[in-house]
């Protein structure tokens, strides 16, 4: 199932490895050593939130419970993100092995891949790979001959809800509920799926962890910056010559990325998808790293001719539809922003009201219940900040 159309470069993640050999090697190590290695690597979650993976695994490992779960968040719904699609189809075994190791390190026997409903066409392939691993004793009981180590993986499908990419909403969905995020704390590492300690990691995180455990934390830290170690996959789309999935070391500047993908004339770049922010020309020297512009890897390029208000509208329409509707600031705040965009389109928005809306954005960021609501206003805010003049001087012809 090679996704041949997708442009990509070779990196330390995007390369062929002997998955099974690594798994067998790692399973010979002590759990503590695995946890230490992952923690030392300073690997941060690749889904976008950037929580330390080593810490997450350690917390779950410390939690005492008869049952623990490893969940792979394959609900890749962030607009402009498709790297997991590539990983799920081309690096399936690496993912399954990464989850198995996480299970071993944390003391979990069950793994669940929550695959978004839109990726249902991959499910047969994933099932095939899982079956193959059971046949080769790389899943199930006594994995790789390690007595008493049991790990099973099942695949569960989403049904079209972006918010289920939020880890607690994902767990709710697995439990047969509306995908409404939970109050946190408690966090899933102590009280997750079925109330049991649960590690929820992105597809890329599991695969990256596998590579780290193969080559060591020191090797991994050679890439990236001090705070944002390693490389990261970027999903690149929009107005550029070579859209696709790229692996870059963290800390790369926006400008470097744009040069690489053939988008030198870009007017702006949306980093992090709909929930990320719009970076304008004057910020192109900024770096893509957790300490600067944090991202799950979505890069959408806007060429010089793009109407940025239309872009903002598209993002706000997205959130209006995908908000779970649970908490007030997100449910109605997005709607108010969307109405604000309509006023701007009709050139009927006073500066006072525009500032009020920007104030509302700040409220949404700090009061919404989950990451979706907290990041929903980002696009609106950054586009209006960076392109205020363009938007306010729109002529009536539009």
């Amino acid at each position, binding site marked *: 199932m090679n996704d041949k159309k*997708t442009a990509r470069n070779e990196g330390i993640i995007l390369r062929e490895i002997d998955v099974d050999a690594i798994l067998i090697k790692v399973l010979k190590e002590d759990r503590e050593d695995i946890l230490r290695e992952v923690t030392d690597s300073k690997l941060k979650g690749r889904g976008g939130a950037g929580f330390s993976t080593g810490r997450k695994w350690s917390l779950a490992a410390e939690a005492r419970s008869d049952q623990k779960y490893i969940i792979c968040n394959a609900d890749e719904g962030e607009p*402009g993100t498709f790297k997991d*699609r590539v990983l799920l189809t081309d690096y399936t075994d690496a993912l399954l092995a990464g989850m198995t190791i996480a299970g071993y390190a944390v003391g979990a026997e069950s793994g669940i891949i929550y695959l978004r409903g839109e990726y249902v066409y991959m499910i047969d392939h994933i099932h095939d790979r899982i079956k193959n691993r059971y046949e080769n004793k790389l899943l199930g009981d006594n994995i790789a001959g390690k007595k008493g180590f049991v790990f099973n993986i099942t695949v569960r499908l989403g049904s079209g*809800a972006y918010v289920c990419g939020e880890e607690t909403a994902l767990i709710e969905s697995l439990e047969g509920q509306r995908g409404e995020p939970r109050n946190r704390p408690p966090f899933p590492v102590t009280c997750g799926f079925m109330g049991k300690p649960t590690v929820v990691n992105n597809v890329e995180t599991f695969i990256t962890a596998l590579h780290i455990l193969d080559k060591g934390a020191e090797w991994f830290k050679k890439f990236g910056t001090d705070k944002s170690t390693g490389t990261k996959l970027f999903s690149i789309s929009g*107005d550029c010559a070579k859209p696709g999935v790229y692996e870059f070391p963290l800390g790369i500047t926006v400008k470097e990325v744009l040069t690489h993908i053939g988008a030198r004339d870009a007017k702006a770049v949306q980093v992090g998808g709909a929930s990320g922010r719009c970076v304008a020309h004057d910020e192109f020297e900024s770096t893509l790293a957790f300490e600067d512009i944090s991202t799950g890897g979505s890069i959408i390029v806007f060429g010089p001719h793009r109407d940025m208000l239309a872009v903002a509208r598209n993002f706000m329409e997205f959130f209006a539809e995908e908000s779970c509707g649970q908490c007030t600031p997100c449910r109605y705040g997005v709607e108010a922003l969307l109405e604000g965009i309509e006023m701007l389109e009709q050139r009927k928005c006073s500066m006072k009201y525009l500032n009020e809306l920007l104030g509302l954005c700040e409220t949404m960021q700090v009061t919404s219940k989950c990451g979706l609501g907290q990041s929903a206003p980002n696009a609106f805010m950054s586009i209006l900040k960076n392109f205020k003049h363009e938007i306010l001087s729109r002529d009536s012809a539009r």
Partner: protein
Amino acid sequence: MLASERDQLKTEIWEMARKYDHHRSGLMPVLQHVQRKYRYISPEAMQESAGAFHIHPVEVYGVVSFYSFLSTKPKGKFIIRLCRTISCEMTGKAVIARQLENDLGITFGETTKDGMFTLEYTNCLGMCDSGPALLVNDEIYTEVTPESVADIIESYVRKFGASVTEEKKHE
């Protein structure tokens, strides 16, 4: 719904629920199965699922209404979902949308009279590098052009030997 069909539905739901020990965590797979097989989740199916998982029918309704791939109204045999998110929009989603409407003779949200096609928008399909993208049931189509829209529709019509959907009336 015929009595036999209803019994069949009931049996399926209860058998699937048993696999999950009638725990609510099995609700989504059951609903996904019903949606796939019957093209919608009827009030009967919701009440039956509620019974099988010991929850209230209104809770099942709450779940069904939450997820955009689950529906309480009958859908066509093939659901065409066109991605409307930013990258696909920038690659010309609007043109594809127009062509789909013209070729199927329906607007978004509608189902053709013969029950073959339902046309819907969806959010990001994860094909941003090769848009415009659309999903027909489980199959993905990328870099769709106005010309290929007709071919895609035609391939499904041919596959299932259905009559060609009526031409959109021009006033």
